[in-house]
Protein backbone atom coordinates (compact mmCIF):
# COMPACT_ATOMS: atom_id res chain seq x y z
CA UNK A 1 0.00 0.00 0.00
CA UNK A 2 2.68 2.39 1.09
CA UNK A 3 4.64 2.00 -2.12
CA UNK A 4 1.66 2.86 -4.26
CA UNK A 5 0.95 5.94 -2.20
CA UNK A 6 4.47 7.16 -2.65
CA UNK A 7 4.19 6.67 -6.38
CA UNK A 8 1.09 8.78 -6.53
CA UNK A 9 2.85 11.51 -4.62
CA UNK A 10 5.77 11.37 -7.01
CA UNK A 11 3.47 11.44 -9.96
CA UNK A 12 1.69 14.45 -8.57
CA UNK A 13 4.98 16.24 -8.09
CA UNK A 14 6.12 15.41 -11.60
CA UNK A 15 2.81 16.56 -12.94
CA UNK A 16 2.90 19.77 -10.99
CA UNK A 17 6.27 20.79 -12.39
CA UNK A 18 4.81 20.63 -15.89
CA UNK A 19 2.47 23.55 -15.35
CA UNK A 20 2.66 27.11 -16.52
CA UNK A 21 5.43 29.38 -15.44
CA UNK A 22 7.77 26.71 -14.13
CA UNK A 23 8.18 25.39 -17.68
CA UNK A 24 9.13 28.85 -18.86
CA UNK A 25 11.56 29.21 -16.01
CA UNK A 26 13.16 25.84 -16.66
CA UNK A 27 13.61 26.59 -20.34
CA UNK A 28 15.41 29.80 -19.48
CA UNK A 29 17.70 28.06 -16.99
CA UNK A 30 18.58 25.36 -19.51
CA UNK A 31 19.16 27.71 -22.41
CA UNK A 32 22.55 29.25 -21.64
CA UNK A 33 22.17 32.03 -24.19
CA UNK A 34 18.78 33.04 -22.83
CA UNK A 35 20.05 32.92 -19.26
CA UNK A 36 23.02 35.13 -20.06
CA UNK A 37 20.72 37.49 -21.97
CA UNK A 38 18.30 37.67 -19.08
CA UNK A 39 21.11 38.41 -16.61
CA UNK A 40 22.55 41.02 -19.00
CA UNK A 41 19.19 42.70 -19.47
CA UNK A 42 18.36 42.77 -15.76
CA UNK A 43 21.89 43.96 -15.04
CA UNK A 44 21.63 46.86 -17.49
CA UNK A 45 18.16 47.78 -16.24
CA UNK A 46 19.19 47.82 -12.58
CA UNK A 47 22.47 49.64 -13.26
CA UNK A 48 20.79 52.29 -15.36
CA UNK A 49 17.99 52.95 -12.89
CA UNK A 50 20.32 53.03 -9.88
CA UNK A 51 22.91 55.27 -11.53
CA UNK A 52 20.27 57.68 -12.81
CA UNK A 53 19.03 58.04 -9.23
CA UNK A 54 22.52 59.09 -8.16
CA UNK A 55 23.40 61.05 -11.30
CA UNK A 56 22.53 64.71 -11.41
CA UNK A 57 20.34 65.26 -14.46
CA UNK A 58 21.03 69.01 -14.62
CA UNK A 59 24.75 68.32 -14.59
CA UNK A 60 24.39 66.16 -17.70
CA UNK A 61 22.23 68.43 -19.79
CA UNK A 62 24.21 71.55 -18.85
CA UNK A 63 25.80 73.16 -21.86
CA UNK A 64 29.57 73.52 -21.54
CA UNK A 65 30.96 75.54 -24.42
CA UNK A 66 34.57 74.82 -23.48
CA UNK A 67 34.15 71.09 -24.05
CA UNK A 68 32.35 70.84 -27.40
CA UNK A 69 32.87 67.61 -29.35
CA UNK A 70 35.55 66.25 -27.06
CA UNK A 71 36.71 62.75 -27.96
CA UNK A 72 36.60 60.15 -25.18
CA UNK A 73 38.98 60.96 -22.34
CA UNK A 74 39.29 60.38 -18.63
CA UNK A 75 36.90 63.20 -17.66
CA UNK A 76 34.40 62.38 -20.40
CA UNK A 77 34.33 58.60 -20.75
CA UNK A 78 32.57 58.72 -24.06
CA UNK A 79 33.33 62.27 -25.11
CA UNK A 80 30.87 65.14 -25.46
CA UNK A 81 28.26 66.31 -27.97
CA UNK A 82 27.76 69.65 -29.76
CA UNK A 83 26.74 71.31 -26.50
CA UNK A 84 29.65 69.97 -24.49
CA UNK A 85 27.34 67.55 -22.71
CA UNK A 86 28.74 64.28 -21.43
CA UNK A 87 27.74 61.40 -23.70
CA UNK A 88 28.16 58.73 -21.04
CA UNK A 89 25.68 60.43 -18.73
CA UNK A 90 23.25 60.89 -21.61
CA UNK A 91 23.66 57.22 -22.47
CA UNK A 92 22.64 56.21 -18.95
CA UNK A 93 19.63 58.54 -18.85
CA UNK A 94 18.74 57.61 -22.43
CA UNK A 95 18.81 53.90 -21.71
CA UNK A 96 16.62 54.45 -18.67
CA UNK A 97 14.07 56.45 -20.67
CA UNK A 98 14.10 53.98 -23.58
CA UNK A 99 13.56 51.03 -21.25
CA UNK A 100 10.87 52.89 -19.33
CA UNK A 101 8.86 53.70 -22.44
CA UNK A 102 9.40 50.15 -23.65
CA UNK A 103 7.91 48.76 -20.45
CA UNK A 104 5.02 51.24 -20.36
CA UNK A 105 4.00 50.68 -23.97
CA UNK A 106 4.36 46.91 -23.68
CA UNK A 107 2.18 46.78 -20.57
CA UNK A 108 -0.45 49.14 -21.98
CA UNK A 109 -0.68 47.32 -25.32
CA UNK A 110 -0.75 44.06 -23.38
CA UNK A 111 -3.70 45.12 -21.24
CA UNK A 112 -5.69 46.49 -24.18
CA UNK A 113 -4.77 43.69 -26.57
CA UNK A 114 -5.46 40.87 -24.14
CA UNK A 115 -8.79 42.31 -23.02
CA UNK A 116 -9.89 42.99 -26.60
CA UNK A 117 -8.81 39.58 -27.84
CA UNK A 118 -10.30 37.77 -24.88
CA UNK A 119 -13.71 39.41 -25.22
CA UNK A 120 -13.75 38.95 -28.98
CA UNK A 121 -12.67 35.33 -28.89
CA UNK A 122 -14.70 34.29 -25.88
CA UNK A 123 -18.06 35.63 -27.04
CA UNK A 124 -17.40 34.89 -30.72
CA UNK A 125 -20.34 35.34 -33.12
CA UNK A 126 -21.54 38.83 -34.03
CA UNK A 127 -19.53 40.67 -31.40
CA UNK A 128 -16.38 38.97 -32.63
CA UNK A 129 -17.24 39.92 -36.19
CA UNK A 130 -17.67 43.59 -35.33
CA UNK A 131 -14.55 43.69 -33.18
CA UNK A 132 -12.48 42.01 -35.88
CA UNK A 133 -13.54 44.64 -38.42
CA UNK A 134 -12.36 47.33 -35.99
CA UNK A 135 -9.07 45.51 -35.55
CA UNK A 136 -8.64 45.06 -39.27
CA UNK A 137 -9.12 48.74 -39.79
CA UNK A 138 -6.44 49.62 -37.25
CA UNK A 139 -4.20 47.10 -38.94
CA UNK A 140 -4.33 48.70 -42.36
CA UNK A 141 -3.55 52.20 -41.08
CA UNK A 142 -0.06 53.45 -41.97
CA UNK A 143 1.14 53.07 -38.39
CA UNK A 144 4.44 54.91 -38.44
CA UNK A 145 3.06 57.94 -40.29
CA UNK A 146 0.07 58.34 -38.01
CA UNK A 147 2.27 58.15 -34.92
CA UNK A 148 4.48 60.86 -36.39
CA UNK A 149 1.47 63.02 -37.29
CA UNK A 150 -0.03 62.69 -33.83
CA UNK A 151 3.27 63.36 -32.11
CA UNK A 152 3.54 66.57 -34.13
CA UNK A 153 -0.10 67.48 -33.46
CA UNK A 154 -0.60 66.93 -29.74
CA UNK A 155 -0.32 70.13 -27.75
CA UNK A 156 1.58 69.95 -24.43
CA UNK A 157 3.41 66.91 -25.68
CA UNK A 158 4.87 64.69 -22.96
CA UNK A 159 6.16 61.21 -22.26
CA UNK A 160 2.65 60.13 -21.28
CA UNK A 161 1.08 61.28 -24.52
CA UNK A 162 3.90 59.66 -26.48
CA UNK A 163 3.28 56.27 -24.88
CA UNK A 164 -0.47 56.62 -25.38
CA UNK A 165 -0.01 57.42 -29.07
CA UNK A 166 2.26 54.42 -29.55
CA UNK A 167 -0.17 52.18 -27.66
CA UNK A 168 -3.11 53.31 -29.79
CA UNK A 169 -1.54 51.77 -32.90
CA UNK A 170 0.27 48.78 -31.45
CA UNK A 171 -2.27 46.63 -29.58
CA UNK A 172 -3.69 44.76 -32.60
CA UNK A 173 -1.11 42.01 -32.96
CA UNK A 174 -1.57 40.88 -29.35
CA UNK A 175 -5.36 41.07 -29.64
CA UNK A 176 -5.32 38.87 -32.74
CA UNK A 177 -3.20 36.13 -31.20
CA UNK A 178 -5.18 36.11 -27.94
CA UNK A 179 -8.47 36.05 -29.84
CA UNK A 180 -7.41 33.02 -31.88
CA UNK A 181 -6.42 31.20 -28.69
CA UNK A 182 -9.58 32.21 -26.85
CA UNK A 183 -11.67 30.93 -29.77
CA UNK A 184 -10.06 27.50 -29.35
CA UNK A 185 -10.31 27.60 -25.58
CA UNK A 186 -14.03 28.41 -25.44
CA UNK A 187 -14.87 25.12 -27.13
CA UNK A 188 -13.11 23.09 -24.44
CA UNK A 189 -15.04 21.09 -21.89
CA UNK A 190 -13.96 22.98 -18.81
CA UNK A 191 -15.43 26.18 -20.17
CA UNK A 192 -18.68 24.45 -21.04
CA UNK A 193 -18.73 22.97 -17.53
CA UNK A 194 -18.24 26.37 -15.92
CA UNK A 195 -21.00 27.79 -18.07
CA UNK A 196 -23.38 25.02 -17.05
CA UNK A 197 -22.54 25.69 -13.43
CA UNK A 198 -23.64 29.27 -13.96
CA UNK A 199 -20.29 30.99 -13.55
CA UNK A 200 -20.56 34.55 -14.86
CA UNK A 201 -18.88 35.14 -18.20
CA UNK A 202 -16.34 37.65 -16.94
CA UNK A 203 -15.27 35.23 -14.27
CA UNK A 204 -14.72 32.46 -16.81
CA UNK A 205 -12.84 34.84 -19.08
CA UNK A 206 -10.47 36.28 -16.52
CA UNK A 207 -10.50 33.43 -14.01
CA UNK A 208 -10.32 30.41 -16.30
CA UNK A 209 -9.31 31.36 -19.83
CA UNK A 210 -6.77 34.04 -18.99
CA UNK A 211 -4.62 31.87 -16.66
CA UNK A 212 -4.47 29.24 -19.37
CA UNK A 213 -3.09 31.79 -21.81
CA UNK A 214 -0.62 33.28 -19.33
CA UNK A 215 2.54 31.70 -20.74
CA UNK A 216 1.56 32.71 -24.27
CA UNK A 217 0.95 36.27 -23.08
CA UNK A 218 4.37 36.41 -21.42
CA UNK A 219 6.00 35.26 -24.66
CA UNK A 220 4.21 37.84 -26.81
CA UNK A 221 4.93 40.64 -24.38
CA UNK A 222 8.62 39.77 -24.17
CA UNK A 223 9.00 39.78 -27.94
CA UNK A 224 6.98 42.99 -28.10
CA UNK A 225 9.24 44.64 -25.54
CA UNK A 226 12.18 44.18 -27.89
CA UNK A 227 10.21 45.58 -30.82
CA UNK A 228 8.97 48.55 -28.78
CA UNK A 229 12.46 49.51 -27.65
CA UNK A 230 13.52 49.52 -31.31
CA UNK A 231 10.47 51.48 -32.40
CA UNK A 232 10.86 54.14 -29.76
CA UNK A 233 14.50 54.69 -30.62
CA UNK A 234 13.57 54.85 -34.30
CA UNK A 235 10.96 57.52 -33.66
CA UNK A 236 13.31 59.50 -31.43
CA UNK A 237 15.91 59.16 -34.15
CA UNK A 238 13.59 60.85 -36.64
CA UNK A 239 12.84 63.52 -34.05
CA UNK A 240 9.33 62.35 -33.22
CA UNK A 241 9.97 60.45 -30.04
CA UNK A 242 10.58 61.83 -26.61
CA UNK A 243 10.21 65.53 -25.90
CA UNK A 244 13.55 67.31 -26.17
CA UNK A 245 14.30 67.56 -22.47
CA UNK A 246 14.26 63.78 -22.01
CA UNK A 247 17.01 62.18 -24.09
CA UNK A 248 16.63 58.58 -25.19
CA UNK A 249 18.96 56.22 -27.01
CA UNK A 250 17.32 57.32 -30.26
CA UNK A 251 18.10 60.96 -29.46
CA UNK A 252 21.80 60.14 -29.27
CA UNK A 253 21.56 58.36 -32.60
CA UNK A 254 19.76 61.30 -34.15
CA UNK A 255 22.94 63.36 -33.76
CA UNK A 256 24.33 61.08 -36.46
CA UNK A 257 21.93 62.64 -38.96
CA UNK A 258 24.54 65.36 -39.14
CA UNK A 259 27.03 63.96 -41.70
CA UNK A 260 30.03 65.34 -39.82
CA UNK A 261 29.00 63.64 -36.60
CA UNK A 262 28.36 60.41 -38.44
CA UNK A 263 31.72 60.53 -40.17
CA UNK A 264 34.14 61.85 -37.57
CA UNK A 265 32.55 61.61 -34.13
CA UNK A 266 31.62 57.98 -33.71
CA UNK A 267 31.66 58.22 -29.91
CA UNK A 268 28.41 60.16 -29.94
CA UNK A 269 26.23 57.67 -31.76
CA UNK A 270 27.98 54.30 -31.95
CA UNK A 271 27.66 53.36 -28.23
CA UNK A 272 23.93 54.08 -28.34
CA UNK A 273 23.58 52.01 -31.53
CA UNK A 274 25.42 49.06 -29.97
CA UNK A 275 23.42 49.36 -26.77
CA UNK A 276 20.07 49.32 -28.61
CA UNK A 277 21.23 46.32 -30.59
CA UNK A 278 22.38 44.41 -27.48
CA UNK A 279 19.21 45.25 -25.55
CA UNK A 280 16.96 44.09 -28.38
CA UNK A 281 19.06 40.99 -28.94
CA UNK A 282 18.98 39.97 -25.28
CA UNK A 283 15.24 40.54 -24.89
CA UNK A 284 14.65 38.57 -28.08
CA UNK A 285 16.84 35.71 -26.85
CA UNK A 286 14.72 35.44 -23.73
CA UNK A 287 11.53 35.74 -25.77
CA UNK A 288 12.57 33.05 -28.25
CA UNK A 289 13.51 30.69 -25.43
CA UNK A 290 10.11 31.28 -23.82
CA UNK A 291 8.43 30.70 -27.18
CA UNK A 292 10.15 27.34 -27.45
CA UNK A 293 8.96 26.51 -23.96
CA UNK A 294 5.32 27.13 -24.85
CA UNK A 295 5.56 24.88 -27.88
CA UNK A 296 5.67 21.28 -26.58
CA UNK A 297 7.21 20.05 -29.83
CA UNK A 298 10.29 22.19 -29.38
CA UNK A 299 10.54 22.03 -25.62
CA UNK A 300 13.53 20.43 -23.98
CA UNK A 301 12.85 17.72 -21.43
Amino acid at each position, binding site marked *: MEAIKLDIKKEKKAHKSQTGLSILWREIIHDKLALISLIFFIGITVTVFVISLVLDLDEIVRVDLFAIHEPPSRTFWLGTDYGGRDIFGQLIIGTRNSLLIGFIVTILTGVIGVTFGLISGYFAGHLDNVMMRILEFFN*ILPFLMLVI*VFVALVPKYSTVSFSLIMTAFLWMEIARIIRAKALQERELDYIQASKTLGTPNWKIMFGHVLPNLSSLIIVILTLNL*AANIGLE*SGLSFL*GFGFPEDTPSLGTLLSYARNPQTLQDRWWI*WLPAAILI*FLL*MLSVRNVGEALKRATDPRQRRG
Partner: protein
Amino acid sequence: MWKFIVRRLMIALPQIALLSLIVFIIALMMPGDALTGLVDPTLDPAAIAAQRERLGLNNPWYVQYGDWISGVIRGDLGQSFRYKMDVTELIGSRLVNTFWLSLLTTVITYLIALPLGIISGRYHDSLRDQVITGYTYFGFATPLFIFALVMLWIFGFNTGWFPTGGSVAPGLTPGTWAYVLSKIHHLLLPALSMALITTVSTVQYLRSEIIDTKQKDFIITARSKGASESRVYNYHIFRNSLLPISALFGSDIAKLISGTIFVESIYSYPGMGQLFVESILQRDSSVAIALVLLFGIANILGTLISDVILSLVDPRIRIK
Protein backbone atom coordinates in the same frame (compact mmCIF):
# COMPACT_ATOMS: atom_id res chain seq x y z
CA MET B 1 -12.52 33.63 -58.31
CA TRP B 2 -14.13 36.89 -59.42
CA LYS B 3 -16.67 36.53 -56.68
CA PHE B 4 -13.87 36.49 -54.16
CA ILE B 5 -12.17 39.54 -55.64
CA VAL B 6 -15.41 41.50 -55.70
CA ARG B 7 -16.18 40.52 -52.13
CA ARG B 8 -12.68 41.52 -51.09
CA LEU B 9 -13.08 44.87 -52.83
CA MET B 10 -16.28 45.43 -50.89
CA ILE B 11 -14.17 45.37 -47.74
CA ALA B 12 -11.39 47.54 -49.12
CA LEU B 13 -13.60 50.40 -50.35
CA PRO B 14 -15.19 51.23 -46.96
CA GLN B 15 -11.74 50.97 -45.45
CA ILE B 16 -10.47 53.59 -47.88
CA ALA B 17 -13.50 55.79 -47.13
CA LEU B 18 -12.93 55.51 -43.39
CA LEU B 19 -9.26 56.22 -43.84
CA SER B 20 -10.04 59.38 -45.82
CA LEU B 21 -12.38 60.51 -43.04
CA ILE B 22 -9.68 60.03 -40.40
CA VAL B 23 -7.13 61.80 -42.54
CA PHE B 24 -9.58 64.68 -43.01
CA ILE B 25 -10.13 64.96 -39.25
CA ILE B 26 -6.36 65.08 -38.78
CA ALA B 27 -6.21 67.79 -41.43
CA LEU B 28 -8.75 69.87 -39.50
CA MET B 29 -6.66 69.47 -36.34
CA MET B 30 -3.49 70.60 -38.09
CA PRO B 31 -2.34 74.18 -37.85
CA GLY B 32 -3.17 76.32 -40.88
CA ASP B 33 -5.66 75.67 -43.69
CA ALA B 34 -5.87 75.98 -47.45
CA LEU B 35 -5.31 79.71 -47.23
CA THR B 36 -2.18 79.85 -45.06
CA GLY B 37 0.82 80.33 -47.23
CA LEU B 38 -1.25 81.53 -50.14
CA VAL B 39 -2.12 84.96 -48.80
CA ASP B 40 0.11 87.80 -47.79
CA PRO B 41 -0.08 88.15 -43.99
CA THR B 42 -0.21 91.93 -44.29
CA LEU B 43 -3.52 91.70 -46.13
CA ASP B 44 -6.63 93.24 -44.63
CA PRO B 45 -8.23 90.72 -42.18
CA ALA B 46 -11.65 91.49 -43.66
CA ALA B 47 -10.43 90.50 -47.12
CA ILE B 48 -9.00 87.26 -45.72
CA ALA B 49 -12.30 86.54 -44.01
CA ALA B 50 -14.10 87.12 -47.31
CA GLN B 51 -11.69 84.73 -49.04
CA ARG B 52 -12.31 82.13 -46.35
CA GLU B 53 -16.04 82.44 -46.90
CA ARG B 54 -15.59 82.15 -50.67
CA LEU B 55 -13.41 79.02 -50.34
CA GLY B 56 -16.00 77.45 -48.06
CA LEU B 57 -13.73 77.23 -45.03
CA ASN B 58 -16.57 78.35 -42.77
CA ASN B 59 -18.91 75.58 -43.90
CA PRO B 60 -19.83 72.71 -41.57
CA TRP B 61 -17.25 69.93 -41.56
CA TYR B 62 -19.22 67.45 -43.67
CA VAL B 63 -19.58 69.98 -46.49
CA GLN B 64 -15.84 70.68 -46.24
CA TYR B 65 -15.16 66.95 -46.29
CA GLY B 66 -17.27 66.61 -49.43
CA ASP B 67 -15.38 69.45 -51.10
CA TRP B 68 -12.03 67.98 -50.08
CA ILE B 69 -12.79 64.43 -51.15
CA SER B 70 -14.13 65.49 -54.54
CA GLY B 71 -10.93 67.48 -54.98
CA VAL B 72 -8.84 64.47 -54.02
CA ILE B 73 -10.66 62.29 -56.53
CA ARG B 74 -9.99 64.86 -59.25
CA GLY B 75 -6.32 64.82 -58.19
CA ASP B 76 -6.36 68.19 -56.45
CA LEU B 77 -4.57 67.81 -53.13
CA GLY B 78 -4.11 71.48 -52.40
CA GLN B 79 -1.08 73.71 -52.33
CA SER B 80 2.23 73.13 -50.62
CA PHE B 81 2.87 75.99 -48.25
CA ARG B 82 6.63 75.58 -48.44
CA TYR B 83 7.29 74.68 -52.06
CA LYS B 84 4.58 77.01 -53.42
CA MET B 85 3.39 74.41 -55.87
CA ASP B 86 0.58 71.90 -56.27
CA VAL B 87 0.88 69.00 -53.87
CA THR B 88 0.00 66.59 -56.68
CA GLU B 89 2.88 67.86 -58.77
CA LEU B 90 5.29 67.82 -55.82
CA ILE B 91 4.39 64.29 -54.81
CA GLY B 92 4.51 63.17 -58.42
CA SER B 93 8.13 64.26 -58.70
CA ARG B 94 9.04 62.34 -55.53
CA LEU B 95 6.87 59.32 -56.26
CA VAL B 96 9.16 58.17 -59.08
CA ASN B 97 12.19 58.07 -56.79
CA THR B 98 10.37 56.14 -54.07
CA PHE B 99 8.97 53.78 -56.67
CA TRP B 100 12.41 52.84 -57.98
CA LEU B 101 13.77 52.50 -54.46
CA SER B 102 10.90 50.21 -53.41
CA LEU B 103 11.15 48.16 -56.59
CA LEU B 104 14.88 47.61 -56.26
CA THR B 105 14.48 46.78 -52.56
CA THR B 106 11.80 44.21 -53.32
CA VAL B 107 13.88 42.63 -56.08
CA ILE B 108 16.96 42.40 -53.85
CA THR B 109 14.84 41.11 -50.95
CA TYR B 110 13.63 38.14 -52.99
CA LEU B 111 16.98 37.63 -54.67
CA ILE B 112 18.41 37.09 -51.20
CA ALA B 113 15.42 35.36 -49.63
CA LEU B 114 14.69 32.64 -52.17
CA PRO B 115 18.14 31.04 -52.44
CA LEU B 116 18.92 31.46 -48.73
CA GLY B 117 15.54 30.08 -47.67
CA ILE B 118 15.81 27.11 -50.02
CA ILE B 119 19.39 26.24 -49.06
CA SER B 120 18.59 26.66 -45.39
CA GLY B 121 15.50 24.48 -45.61
CA ARG B 122 16.98 21.83 -47.87
CA TYR B 123 20.19 21.26 -45.90
CA HIS B 124 18.77 22.11 -42.51
CA ASP B 125 21.01 21.61 -39.48
CA SER B 126 24.07 21.68 -41.73
CA LEU B 127 26.79 24.31 -41.48
CA ARG B 128 25.25 26.30 -44.33
CA ASP B 129 21.94 26.36 -42.52
CA GLN B 130 23.57 27.49 -39.30
CA VAL B 131 25.27 30.39 -41.06
CA ILE B 132 21.98 31.45 -42.64
CA THR B 133 19.96 31.15 -39.43
CA GLY B 134 22.72 33.08 -37.70
CA TYR B 135 22.20 35.87 -40.21
CA THR B 136 18.41 35.90 -39.71
CA TYR B 137 18.93 35.84 -35.95
CA PHE B 138 20.96 39.05 -36.05
CA GLY B 139 18.78 40.55 -38.75
CA PHE B 140 15.69 40.23 -36.60
CA ALA B 141 17.30 42.05 -33.71
CA THR B 142 18.76 44.93 -35.72
CA PRO B 143 16.53 47.95 -36.20
CA LEU B 144 16.53 49.06 -39.83
CA PHE B 145 17.57 52.64 -39.10
CA ILE B 146 20.65 51.59 -37.15
CA PHE B 147 21.69 49.19 -39.90
CA ALA B 148 21.17 51.83 -42.58
CA LEU B 149 23.18 54.32 -40.55
CA VAL B 150 26.08 51.91 -40.10
CA MET B 151 25.99 51.00 -43.80
CA LEU B 152 26.12 54.68 -44.71
CA TRP B 153 28.99 55.19 -42.28
CA ILE B 154 31.04 52.28 -43.63
CA PHE B 155 30.26 52.25 -47.35
CA GLY B 156 29.30 55.87 -47.84
CA PHE B 157 31.76 57.80 -45.71
CA ASN B 158 34.65 55.53 -44.74
CA THR B 159 35.24 53.67 -47.99
CA GLY B 160 33.55 56.18 -50.26
CA TRP B 161 32.20 53.49 -52.55
CA PHE B 162 28.72 54.93 -52.63
CA PRO B 163 27.33 58.47 -52.66
CA THR B 164 26.02 59.67 -49.32
CA GLY B 165 22.94 61.56 -50.45
CA GLY B 166 20.64 62.60 -53.25
CA SER B 167 19.19 60.51 -56.06
CA VAL B 168 21.50 61.44 -58.92
CA ALA B 169 24.82 63.23 -59.38
CA PRO B 170 24.31 66.88 -60.34
CA GLY B 171 25.06 68.08 -63.86
CA LEU B 172 23.90 65.03 -65.76
CA THR B 173 21.24 65.26 -68.43
CA PRO B 174 18.23 62.96 -68.02
CA GLY B 175 18.04 60.16 -70.55
CA THR B 176 21.76 59.63 -70.97
CA TRP B 177 23.47 56.41 -69.99
CA ALA B 178 25.58 58.18 -67.34
CA TYR B 179 22.41 59.55 -65.76
CA VAL B 180 20.85 56.12 -65.42
CA LEU B 181 24.06 54.66 -64.01
CA SER B 182 24.34 57.45 -61.47
CA LYS B 183 20.73 56.84 -60.44
CA ILE B 184 21.41 53.17 -59.88
CA HIS B 185 24.57 54.01 -57.99
CA HIS B 186 22.58 56.26 -55.66
CA LEU B 187 19.85 53.66 -55.26
CA LEU B 188 22.03 50.68 -54.50
CA LEU B 189 23.12 51.35 -50.93
CA PRO B 190 19.70 52.44 -49.55
CA ALA B 191 17.97 49.53 -51.29
CA LEU B 192 20.57 47.05 -50.11
CA SER B 193 20.42 48.16 -46.49
CA MET B 194 16.61 47.94 -46.49
CA ALA B 195 16.55 44.59 -48.28
CA LEU B 196 19.16 42.94 -46.05
CA ILE B 197 17.00 43.61 -43.00
CA THR B 198 13.52 43.03 -44.42
CA THR B 199 14.50 39.79 -46.11
CA VAL B 200 15.15 37.89 -42.87
CA SER B 201 11.49 37.19 -42.13
CA THR B 202 10.97 35.85 -45.65
CA VAL B 203 14.05 33.64 -45.35
CA GLN B 204 12.83 32.26 -42.06
CA TYR B 205 9.30 31.58 -43.31
CA LEU B 206 10.57 29.89 -46.42
CA ARG B 207 12.97 27.76 -44.39
CA SER B 208 10.40 26.50 -41.89
CA GLU B 209 7.87 25.98 -44.67
CA ILE B 210 10.31 23.84 -46.67
CA ILE B 211 11.26 21.82 -43.58
CA ASP B 212 7.55 21.21 -42.90
CA THR B 213 6.78 20.27 -46.51
CA LYS B 214 9.75 17.91 -46.68
CA GLN B 215 8.05 15.34 -44.49
CA LYS B 216 4.66 15.39 -46.22
CA ASP B 217 3.37 12.24 -47.89
CA PHE B 218 3.31 13.60 -51.42
CA ILE B 219 7.05 14.28 -51.24
CA ILE B 220 7.70 10.70 -50.23
CA THR B 221 5.49 9.64 -53.14
CA ALA B 222 7.44 11.84 -55.53
CA ARG B 223 10.72 10.37 -54.30
CA SER B 224 9.48 6.80 -54.60
CA LYS B 225 8.35 7.52 -58.14
CA GLY B 226 11.99 8.18 -58.84
CA ALA B 227 11.92 11.96 -59.18
CA SER B 228 15.40 13.39 -58.91
CA GLU B 229 16.33 15.30 -55.77
CA SER B 230 16.50 18.62 -57.60
CA ARG B 231 13.08 18.03 -59.15
CA VAL B 232 11.62 17.20 -55.74
CA TYR B 233 12.96 20.44 -54.32
CA ASN B 234 12.53 22.84 -57.20
CA TYR B 235 9.20 21.55 -58.35
CA HIS B 236 7.28 19.83 -55.58
CA ILE B 237 8.50 21.43 -52.39
CA PHE B 238 9.22 24.93 -53.64
CA ARG B 239 5.82 25.41 -55.21
CA ASN B 240 4.07 24.30 -52.07
CA SER B 241 6.20 26.52 -49.90
CA LEU B 242 5.34 29.64 -51.85
CA LEU B 243 2.03 30.10 -50.05
CA PRO B 244 3.30 31.87 -46.94
CA ILE B 245 5.67 33.90 -49.09
CA SER B 246 2.80 35.28 -51.15
CA ALA B 247 0.96 36.07 -47.94
CA LEU B 248 3.98 38.03 -46.79
CA PHE B 249 4.08 40.02 -49.99
CA GLY B 250 1.24 42.32 -48.88
CA SER B 251 2.82 43.03 -45.55
CA ASP B 252 6.02 43.81 -47.42
CA ILE B 253 4.33 46.93 -48.76
CA ALA B 254 3.60 48.12 -45.23
CA LYS B 255 7.21 47.41 -44.31
CA LEU B 256 8.45 49.27 -47.38
CA ILE B 257 6.43 52.32 -46.37
CA SER B 258 7.92 52.60 -42.91
CA GLY B 259 11.27 51.53 -44.33
CA THR B 260 11.39 54.32 -46.90
CA ILE B 261 10.64 56.90 -44.20
CA PHE B 262 13.79 55.87 -42.30
CA VAL B 263 16.04 55.03 -45.20
CA GLU B 264 15.21 58.08 -47.27
CA SER B 265 15.84 60.43 -44.36
CA ILE B 266 19.13 58.74 -43.53
CA TYR B 267 20.40 58.79 -47.13
CA SER B 268 18.75 62.18 -47.84
CA TYR B 269 17.16 60.50 -50.82
CA PRO B 270 14.48 62.77 -52.31
CA GLY B 271 11.50 60.43 -52.09
CA MET B 272 8.11 60.50 -50.43
CA GLY B 273 9.34 59.26 -47.06
CA GLN B 274 11.82 62.08 -46.77
CA LEU B 275 9.21 64.53 -48.02
CA PHE B 276 6.86 63.33 -45.29
CA VAL B 277 9.36 63.88 -42.46
CA GLU B 278 10.24 67.30 -43.91
CA SER B 279 6.62 68.34 -44.31
CA ILE B 280 5.85 67.46 -40.68
CA LEU B 281 8.90 69.31 -39.39
CA GLN B 282 8.09 72.37 -41.48
CA ARG B 283 4.36 72.25 -40.70
CA ASP B 284 3.52 71.85 -44.37
CA SER B 285 0.14 70.30 -43.52
CA SER B 286 -1.34 69.79 -46.96
CA VAL B 287 1.67 67.75 -48.10
CA ALA B 288 1.73 65.65 -44.92
CA ILE B 289 -2.00 64.95 -45.17
CA ALA B 290 -1.79 63.94 -48.81
CA LEU B 291 1.10 61.57 -48.07
CA VAL B 292 -0.71 59.90 -45.16
CA LEU B 293 -3.70 59.35 -47.43
CA LEU B 294 -1.59 57.96 -50.27
CA PHE B 295 0.47 55.63 -48.08
CA GLY B 296 -2.70 54.52 -46.30
CA ILE B 297 -4.33 53.61 -49.60
CA ALA B 298 -1.14 51.83 -50.69
CA ASN B 299 -1.31 49.85 -47.46
CA ILE B 300 -4.93 48.84 -48.06
CA LEU B 301 -4.18 47.86 -51.66
CA GLY B 302 -1.18 45.87 -50.44
CA THR B 303 -3.29 43.68 -48.18
CA LEU B 304 -5.88 43.43 -50.95
CA ILE B 305 -3.28 42.20 -53.42
CA SER B 306 -1.83 39.72 -50.96
CA ASP B 307 -5.31 38.31 -50.23
CA VAL B 308 -5.99 37.93 -53.94
CA ILE B 309 -2.63 36.23 -54.51
CA LEU B 310 -3.37 33.93 -51.59
CA SER B 311 -6.73 32.99 -53.09
CA LEU B 312 -5.04 32.26 -56.42
CA VAL B 313 -2.50 29.99 -54.80
CA ASP B 314 -4.77 28.36 -52.26
CA PRO B 315 -8.28 27.47 -53.50
CA ARG B 316 -9.48 26.71 -49.96
CA ILE B 317 -9.56 30.42 -49.17
CA ARG B 318 -11.77 31.15 -52.18
CA ILE B 319 -14.48 28.75 -51.11
CA LYS B 320 -14.69 30.26 -47.66
